[in-house]
């Protein structure tokens, strides 16, 4: 029995040591899906020799975790994800302001004035529909928010759940902008849209594959996920509403109390500079670069041509996020 107890104690010590040893690298929660984030982190490691440990969460989950760990931060940098998530994070006091060398060059909407967060990309929402579905129902790709209310889409759309996904929150704020921030009108629309929604998914990209397979007729996604679906060979059509649709800056921020502060700053330097954003095209990651010196990939620019896209006001979104999401959960989700 005694030797057993010794073995257990040794094991506990070893496990503690294991965790500590791994903490020496840079620790990151990424809101970008792994297949977008990983190549960027590999490039970073190539250039700096710093290894990035990361875990992927939907933005709501990532935010909730960082808040929960506030007293004992486990990560150094929150990477990617729509700006409204970061705006909400400022209110919780979870970030440490940092201005990378690119700060001065970025447009005003791509940075928080104090450097609480900075943008690493721009990511417009799009409508994505299944080609075969459109043909079978004799429909044109939806070109207006009202087109999505067509009964042909009944029980056919998939989009993200506002409780977990920043894609969803950006979508809801887009609708608010379209209705001139008249919340009642916007929610009346959202409730009508609900009638055509098959399921709300945990992640922003959750509905892309069902749409590609024709299991869903379509949905509202970030362009990066939509074009990825198309690139995989699925029969999908990307379109934009004439009333306009929101685009969200994808941001990065240093965590307050980060254990690897300097390495974290290096990652922010890298991510906000052309060093990373010029790689988007190479890895077929269809984000629009936020840095003015990086040209948008021509193929992506072609898709965006003529689309009416407006930025989501991060201050307004950050201030109202919680309330709007609560209202969505209470009013829209149960509306059948």
């Amino acid at each position, binding site marked *: *029995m005694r030797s*057993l107890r010794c073995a*257990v104690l040794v*094991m*506990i010590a070893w*496990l*503690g040591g*294991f*965790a500590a040893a*791994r*903490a020496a690298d840079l*620790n990151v*929660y990424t809101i970008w*899906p*792994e*297949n977008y984030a*990983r190549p960027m982190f590999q490039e970073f490691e190539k250039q700096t020799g710093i290894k990035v*440990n990361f*875990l*992927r969460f*939907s933005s*709501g*989950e990532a935010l*909730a975790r960082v808040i*929960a*760990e506030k*007293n*004992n931060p*486990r990560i150094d940098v929150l990477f990617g994800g729509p700006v409204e998530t970061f705006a909400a994070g400022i209110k919780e006091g979870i970030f440490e302001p940092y201005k990378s060398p690119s700060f001065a060059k970025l447009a005003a909407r791509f940075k928080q004035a104090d450097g609480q967060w900075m943008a690493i990309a721009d990511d417009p929402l799009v409508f994505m529909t299944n080609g075969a579905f459109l043909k079978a129902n004799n429909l044109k790709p939806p070109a207006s928010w009202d087109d999505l209310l067509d009964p042909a889409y009944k*029980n056919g759309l998939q989009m993200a*759940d506002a*409780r*977990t996904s920043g894609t969803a929150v950006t979508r809801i704020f887009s609708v608010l902008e379209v209705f001139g921030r008249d919340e009642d009108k916007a929610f009346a629309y959202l409730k009508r849209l609900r009638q055509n*929604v*098959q*399921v*709300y*998914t*945990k*992640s922003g*990209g*959750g*509905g*892309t*594959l*069902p749409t*590609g*397979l*024709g*299991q*869903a*007729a379509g949905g509202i996604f970030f362009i990066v996920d939509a074009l990825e679906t198309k690139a*995989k*060979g*699925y029969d999908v059509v990307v379109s934009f509403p004439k009333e306009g649709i929101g685009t969200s800056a994808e941001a990065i921020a240093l965590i307050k109390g980060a254990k690897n502060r300097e390495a974290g700053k290096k990652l922010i330097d890298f991510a906000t500079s052309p060093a990373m954003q010029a790689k988007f095209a190479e890895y077929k990651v269809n984000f629009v670069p936020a840095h003015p010196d990086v040209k948008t990939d021509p193929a992506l620019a072609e898709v965006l041509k003529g689309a009416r896209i407006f930025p989501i006001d991060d201050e307004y979104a950050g201030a109202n996020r919680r309330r709007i*999401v609560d209202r969505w*959960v*209470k009013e829209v*989700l*149960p509306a059948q």
Partner: protein
Amino acid sequence: MARARSPSWRGIAGDPALLGAVAAIWCLLLLLVLFPLAHLLERAFVDEGRPTLAPLLDSLADPGHRAAFVNSLILAASVGVLGTAVGFLFALAAVRAGLGRRWLTVLDAAVLLPLVSPPFTTSISIIFSFGPRGLISHHLLGLTGVSAYGFWSTAIAETLTYFPIAYLTLRPILAAIDPNLEEMAFSLGGSRWRTFRTVTLPLCVPGFANAFLLLFAASLADFATPLILAGNAFPVLPTQAYLQITGLFDFKGGAVLSLLLLVPAVMVFLLQRHWVGRRTYVTVTGKVGQRSRSQAIAPWMQVVLVAACVAVATIIVYFYALLLVASLVAAFGADYSFTWRHYAVIFTEGLPAIRDTLIIAALGMPLGGLYGVLVGYLIARRDFPGRRAMELVAMINYALPGTIVGIAYLIAFNDPPIALTGGALLIVACYVFRYSPTGIRATVALLQQIDRSIEEASASLGAASGETFRRVTLPLIAPAFFAGLGVVFIRSMTAISATIFLVSISWTLITVRILENMTEMALGPAAAFSVFVIVVVFVVVAGLSAVLARLRTPTAGAAARSFLGG
């Protein structure tokens, strides 16, 4: 169980090994079972130092939450009934249809698959088989407008996942019913149907009750299937609690929601103890005398039975074949060219998850096995104050739905004084205390069949209690040890409901990666991970079964069954 002495403080004080073991177990139970649960209750019912029912009443006033509560009960009851029916069908076919050995092996393998799989496998396949353009609903049957989301798909997925528990519960009971008994009724002029109705079925009633309750509890606690399949029209409690906490960072709301699960879970547990307490282990005596071939079921009925089982087994095998295909093609549904890419992905990018999961499973296995045997031994063989209390407390985490346990751990161990979240230790502890009770039960059952006099002989020859345990009892209960080991390993590889709250940047798990891949619709890696888990678990289970077979203890077979049934 006859007990020679009444519990006494003096007895325990005079036996340092016993005292040490009891004290150690109580420390662990206090820290890792009672402390988190107390925290959860406090979070839900105490506001700024004052007790309050307001959060609970708020939660009950929310029609969405009430619907989730009712839905959870409806789903659990449906899965209980459907799963027990399918399980009984399989048990009947296995025991009474006169199948050959090879056929039985095939059936057993098909039944085993859902038991050793990660939780989303059936859900993934259902999503792709049904729905507006589903492989079965549209391409095969030509239906349109079918939804893959909602009550029915969730209930069917859970039934297919959990019916093997009913099968494993009912099969030994059916096997223990002497065919001669049916024969007698038959020869006395009863029709086959009447015999079946008045002899066979009544004898199975305790088994039905047990199977139903096991399935009810499993479904009540299931979080993964509804997350993928229930959709928004059919919210259930575990998923709502999860979204409340991880999405909205509402610990209080999540705690209250998870506590709503507590009431039915505890009721089921108590009912099950009541029903099964006296009956379970009577059937593993192996006393079916001569194996006279049963006449109780008409030959045509046997054919129908076997056909029904083969149909269900075919569906299961089809689901897993789909998964295998998805793991081996470039983009399921669009590009069916063969590729190893997804496996390359899981063994490079997914390697940390694989490594962490295997380390955690490897640690949990021996600890869980030892803990189960030790507690089982103390409960069944030793007298000390608080023995019954220990038995009950040891069962708590097992009886509670994983969501509750996970949330309780998260709340209790997130901040100092005992900040354990983020480490492997907490995940291991979660598995050990949640899944070892199977080992405890197996130990108790084994010990009930081993005569006390063997141990008493050792004691009277002068061995201390620690030595008697090590040299006499331990070898005798080795099968229970391996059974406990097996359960903890299988669950470490496949469980998610509790540990999804405990993964961290340093320690992550395959099942959580599968969920993440699933929700990102990165189907290839999700499928490849699932296939990997199934293969590893199959290999380990086969290895453990071989060990159990070599032990040649009369009770080893029962132990082997119990590690799958748990």
